[in-house]
């Protein structure tokens, strides 16, 4: 289990490659990468991610432990950036490894749902017309009911 909260960029390809370098009982690896989109219509200049140092790491570790127990994961990685980001930059990634694909998929999906609505990150988008905190979506809250 590896949890990293950092301002610096991460190398998605290298992390995927390292994570999938397994032997033995692991047959399935799922990875997710979140990328800064341009906002609809109005071009995004910058995204700023604020977080709650201390609680962030604690919340992510708790989610990873829950997922590991619930789906019998062999390994689990979460990297999440904070600070200023530009369109196309990679915000965060999750990776899960398990014997079978169903567990790896479910655990990654679960981690993303929880991370989205229960890890203390807040996004602020800036465009030519000003800055705005991204509102939480009802869909994201509803997604938690799946688990």
């Amino acid at each position, binding site marked *: 289990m590896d949890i990293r909260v950092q301002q610096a960029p991460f190398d998605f390809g290298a992390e995927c490659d390292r994570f999938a370098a397994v032997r033995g009982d692991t047959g399935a690896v799922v990875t997710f990468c979140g990328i800064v989109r341009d906002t609809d219509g109005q071009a995004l200049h910058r995204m700023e991610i*604020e977080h*709650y140092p201390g*609680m962030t790491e604690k919340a992510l570790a708790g989610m990873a432990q829950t997922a590991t127990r619930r789906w019998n994961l062999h390994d689990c990685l979460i990297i999440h950036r904070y600070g200023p980001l530009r369109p196309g930059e990679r915000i965060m990634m999750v990776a899960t490894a398990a014997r079978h694909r169903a567990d790896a998929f479910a655990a990654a999906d679960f981690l993303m749902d929880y991370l*989205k609505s229960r890890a*203390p990150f*807040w996004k*602020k988008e800036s465009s030519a017309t000003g800055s705005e*905190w*991204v509102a939480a979506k009802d869909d994201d*809250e509803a997604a938690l009911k799946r688990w």
Partner: protein
Amino acid sequence: MKLDVLYFAWLRERIGVPRETLDTSARTVAELVAELKARDDRYALAFSDLDAVRVAVDQDLCDFDTAIEGAREIAFFPPMTGG
């Protein structure tokens, strides 16, 4: 009782500080919020819609009726938007 109180995102912006140390006799989060709202318009505005506010006591998410006796750090923030 002395407490560190933290604010994030637009709560931090409306209140104007990221963190402060308070001396309070509040027994629950809700009582603490009532004290803060009575203090100043900035707090009254920030806490005007509690449906839009989340709270963590000692870095664990909790409800407004949570007891805060013994707590060291209380944080207020909007619904989270990670990922």
